[in-house]
Each structure stands twice: as structure tokens, then as C-alpha cells.
């Protein structure tokens, strides 16, 4: 064996654990799920090849798929812009040279660390339940006896949107870093040009922040499409009441592990991948028209 080959062998042997993990835990399942999506498979019997049947059924004969799409798109369309606007507002406020910035930054970031956890979803459930904290507060303050927000089909989804917005921390930190990048003399020049605070924000800050806005929007959109934990916990894994919080991933989960339609669920997963891919591609195509890159 040449020395060079030996050296390469050594480096690859160091990489081996990761390569094995990558093959077994990432590439393997991806390939398997593609295969399964073309089969009828229920864990008990071996997968049976049925071609495109799963995909045809998704498109033509599955009302719950469309419900899940509807719920998920509503969630994405509401939670992403609202979360970004909220995160940006807080970032702008924090960027005004507040004392103790580091402390506030940490406090505001905390929900993002906690937000995805089951414990917080339980807490959220407790807040918005019929006898929850919110209603107790409302009753105490206004004598108003509120409904159970999470068991009411017309409000349940909005409590989840609210929970998503509450996890604005990571977007905010990125916005804050972006705001710091804008040179101060831009604002000085603008103030000599007579621009008010509002005009400076819309004509200087926002355009110069578009790369960061774009980044946050793409990341948050993908995250929102994949949202699962909060809906699972708050609806007890059902997507209820009456499918009003049936997130796409929740429906997928039910099909796979409750109804044991593994093949069908695999097809659902790939449809979601394609939807996210199309969304991301469209975002990048649109970027040319509104994102300003200074290079």
C-alpha cells in the first residue's frame, strides 16, 4: 500500500462513524421512504408495489389532505409574516441603544429555546383552556367568561399562531445582527437630507435589511410548514377540534402511526417536500426583485 493511500485510509476511518450514521439514518430512510411511497404497506405484511396510486389518491380522493393543506397554509401565511414583523419591531427597539441590551436579548430569546418543547406546549394549553390563565385573567379584569380557546374550532388555530409568534427570538437575534450592520452614517446622511424616523426606516433600514428579511422568511416558512409539536400537544395528537389544527405533519403522523398507512404517509411526506421545495425556489426567484445585496 502506498503511503498516500494509508494516509487517506486513516482520514476516512476517522470519518467512518459519521458516514455510517449519515448512510443509516439519513440516506437510508430517504431512499426507503421514496420506495414506500409507491407501495401499500401497513407494517404487518411486506410492502406491495402499487405504482402512483398513493399520489393519485392524495390529489383526487382525500378530503383530509386538503383540510391539512388548508390548515397548514393558513398557519404559514399568518404566523410567518406576523412573527417576522414582531421580531423586527423588537429588534429595532432593542437596537436603539437600550441599557442592558444583553439581558433583554436573552429574555426575548428564551421563548425560542423553550418554544419547541412539549412542556411549553402544555403550558400554552393550560393558558388557553376553558378554565385557563387567559380566561381567569379576562374574568378578573373584565368579568368576561371566555370560551376554551383551544377547544373552539374557530380559535384553536390562532392560539397556535400566537405560540409560533411567541417564538420570535431567533429571527429577532438575526434581525438585530442585520441592523447592526447598517452603517450609522447612512442615518446621519438621511437626517441631513431631512428624512423623518419613519422615512429612514422605510427608505434606508428596510431596503438594507432585505437580505436578512429574506433569510428569516425562508427559514421560518420551512419551519412553519414542518410545525408539529405544538399542534400535537395542544390537540392531544388529534388535530382537533374537528380537524381545525390538523397540521400537515400531524395528518402524516396519524396516517403513519395511528392508521398504519406507512406507504400512504411516505407519499404525503414527499408531497410536503415538493411543496417546500417549490416555495423555496419561488422565494429565491423573487429575491432578484426585492432583495438588495451590496457586493
Amino acid at each position, binding site marked *: 500500500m502506498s503511503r498516500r493511500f494509508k494516509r487517506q485510509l486513516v482520514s476516512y476511518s476517522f470519518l467512518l462513524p459519521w458516514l455510517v450514521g449519515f448512510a443509516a439514518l439519513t440516506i437510508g430512510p430517504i431512499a426507503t421512504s421514496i420506495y414506500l411511497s409507491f407501495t401499500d404497506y401497513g407494517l404487518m405484511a411486506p410492502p406491495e408495489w402499487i405504482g402512483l396510486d398513493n399520489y393519485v389518491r392524495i390529489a383526487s380522493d382525500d378530503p383530509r389532505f386538503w383540510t391539512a393543506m388548508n390548515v397548514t397554509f393558513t398557519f404559514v401565511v399568518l404566523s410567518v409574516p406576523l412573527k417576522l414583523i414582531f421580531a423586527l419591531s423588537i429588534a429595532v427597539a432593542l437596537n436603539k441603544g437600550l441599557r442592558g441590551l444583553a439581558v433583554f436579548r436573552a429574555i426575548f430569546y428564551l421563548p425560542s429555546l423553550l418554544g419547541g418543547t412539549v412542556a411549553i406546549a402544555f403550558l400554552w394549553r393550560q393558558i388557553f383552556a376553558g378554565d385557563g390563565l387567559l380566561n381567569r385573567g379576562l374574568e378578573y379584569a373584565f368579568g368576561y367568561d371566555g370560551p376554551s380557546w383551544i377547544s373552539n374550532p374557530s380559535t384553536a388555530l390562532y392560539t397556535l399562531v400566537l405560540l409560533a409568534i411567541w417564538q420570535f427570538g431567533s429571527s429577532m437575534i438575526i434581525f438585530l445582527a442585520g441592523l447592526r450592520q447598517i452603517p450609522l452614517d447612512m442615518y446621519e*446622511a438621511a*437626517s441631513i437630507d431631512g428624512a423623518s424616523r419613519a422615512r429612514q426606516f422605510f427608505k434606508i433600514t428596510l431596503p438594507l435589511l432585505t437580505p436578512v428579511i429574506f433569510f428569516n422568511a425562508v427559514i421560518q416558512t420551512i419551519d412553519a410548514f414542518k410545525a408539529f409539536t405544538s399542534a400535537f400537544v395542544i390537540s392531544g395528537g388529534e388535530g382537533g377540534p374537528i380537524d381545525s389544527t390538523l397540521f400537515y405533519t400531524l395528518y402524516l403522523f396519524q396516517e403513519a402511526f395511528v392508521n398504519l398507512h406507512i406507504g400512504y404517509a411516505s407519499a404525503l411526506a414527499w408531497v410536503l417536500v415538493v411543496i417546500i421545495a417549490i416555495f423555496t425556489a419561488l422565494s429565491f426567484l423573487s429575491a432578484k426583485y426585492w432583495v438588495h445585496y451590496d457586493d
Partner: protein
Amino acid sequence: MVDLALKNIDKRFGTVDVINGVNLEINKGEFIVFVGPSGCGKSTLLRMIAGLEPISGGELTINGALMNEVPPSERGIAMVFQSYALYPHMSVYKNMAFGLETAGLPRAEIKVRVQKAADILQITHLLDRKPKALSGGQRQRVAIGRAIVREPNIFLFDEPLSNLDAELRVQTRVEIAKLHKELGATMIYVTHDQVEAMTLADRIVVLRSGNIEQCGRPLELYNKPANKFIAGFIGSPKMNFLNIDFRTSTDVNAKFSLADTRLSIPTTLQAEPGMKFSLGVRPEHISTDPKADVLLGSMAVSHVEQLGGQTVAYGQLQDGQSLIAVLEGQRAIASGDMLNVGISHQHCHLFGSDGNRLND
């Protein structure tokens, strides 16, 4: 006619005094240069005039009106930043039009003004470009253009040439001087480069540690620097300072010794024999004429630079004090040579031990 006046202007950052009681009156149409070493407070003073930095104490008036609390856009000023501060996401046209659009001027009028400024600066062909597609010199012009379209009474420049290469710096300097003549506006210009100050200014204001050291026409500062700091700051190479000892004085002359040499300088001076003084001698005023008014003795040449038009000799006098002499023309001098040097009466600058000028 006074355009802008500073009365006892102070600036503190926290507990640090950066500007201490500055008084200055600037006339309409004057070109004023603030010059001084880095960190002396030039930018701070300019930014207080612009309204970008609050004034800690004293009064700023423009055209007789108190300006301390007036926002920048209402002071009738325009500013050219060292970094240019162009809006990177706007075209050159938009950059120049931004202030006018903000002020709500009609589109047609904005167009006329931008075109006119672009013509003056010869950047008409760049109007559609973004700043990132421009060279340093072109960005500089756009920054000046953005100031011109505002048609301000007072232009403020903060080291506008410091990011340009040497050749472009000289060229732009000339253009700024021309622009001043063309527009007739008051200009306040900050630089740490004494050559820019000498060439551009109607009046130079020399700042040190937040105080005005001297204010006057460029040649006044060159010919009659008020103290050793200014004497050393204005002129290149730097003025030589020679330590001399007082001996005696008459009604018209003071006599000193410099090593074995006796000097007589026309001035009235009361002092004790043996007191230390400093004689300032500009390198370009040193001559090798044996009949010079004041002979400084012989200089041992240690290094020579031939610049073609001039010969620069570095060396020491008998007592070891170093001296630089700039002699006209191409002189056959080599290191190791002894050179008898002298100077005329009018070029002697006498400073006391406190650094202040004594002769006139």
C-alpha cells in the same frame, strides 16, 4: 458678513471634554479649514455644526439665528462624509434626489437640479448606476453632488479626500477649490493634511486637544506661527527647532549662543543670561550663503536626498542638534560633508520655553 458663529462651544462625551470653549466667526462665502492632529476634535466640531452631535455648551448661530436645537435638515447645510455614506441600494440619481424628494420638491425641479449638479461634476453618464459600480473618485463626486443639489448656504466636508489615492487627491482638491469659486457658498472643511489646508483655505483654524491654537490666512500661519505646535504642524518638512541660550539684549537685538556660535536676532527681549529659548528655522529657508544674516555654524551632513528640483540634507550641528535643510536645485553634497548654514532675519522664529512665539 458673518454667516456662522461659534460662541464658547463645549463638547463633553460623558466626563471627557473634547471641545473646550471654541469661539469662531465665519464669513459668508469663506473657505474655512479645520486642521489638527488625529483626535483633536475636528470632526466633533463639524458634526456639532451639522447638528449630528448635540452641543454641550455655548451657542451656535447661523445667519444670526440660534441653531443649537435645530435639526440638521433645517440648518441650511450639506455634508460630505469621509466614507461618502452613499445609499447603496439607490442609483446615483436617487442618491442625489433623496433629500429633495424628502423635502417634497416637484419631480421636474428635482430633475433639473440633479442634472445641473451632475453636469458640474461630470457624472451625468453615471446617474443610473448603483454606488457599488463606481470607483472611489466617482463615489466622491456623487457625495459632493448630493450636497450640491441641496443648494446649501454652508458645505461641510469631513476629510473628503482621505480615501483617494495621491493623484486623485490632488485633482479633486483643485476641483473643490474651483467648486467653491463657482458656487460662492461658505465651506467648512476638515482635514489632518496641512497641504490641503494651505492650498484650499481662505482661513485655517488649527485645533489641538479641543482648543483653537491659531486662526488665520494660510501664509499668516506659515510666516507667523503663534507657537511651536503650529510652527511644527504647518510646513513640510517640519520646522527645525534649535535650543539656544540667551546672552544679552539691546533695544533692537537679542543675542544668543548655539554651541560655539553667537547669534543675533532682531527682537526686544528681557531675559536672564543662560535662559533657554527655541529658534525655529524652516528647512526651505536655510541657505549656505556665508553672508546670511544669522550664521548657525557648520552642519555635518549624514544623509542626502536628491529630489531633482531640491536637495534635502539631513545632519547635525556641532553640538549634536539635528537639522534638515532643503536647498534649491541639484547641489553636489554627499554625506560626510560639512556645510556652513545660515538664515535671514525675517525667517527666524523665536519661541520661549512655554512654546509661544516671541518675535514678530
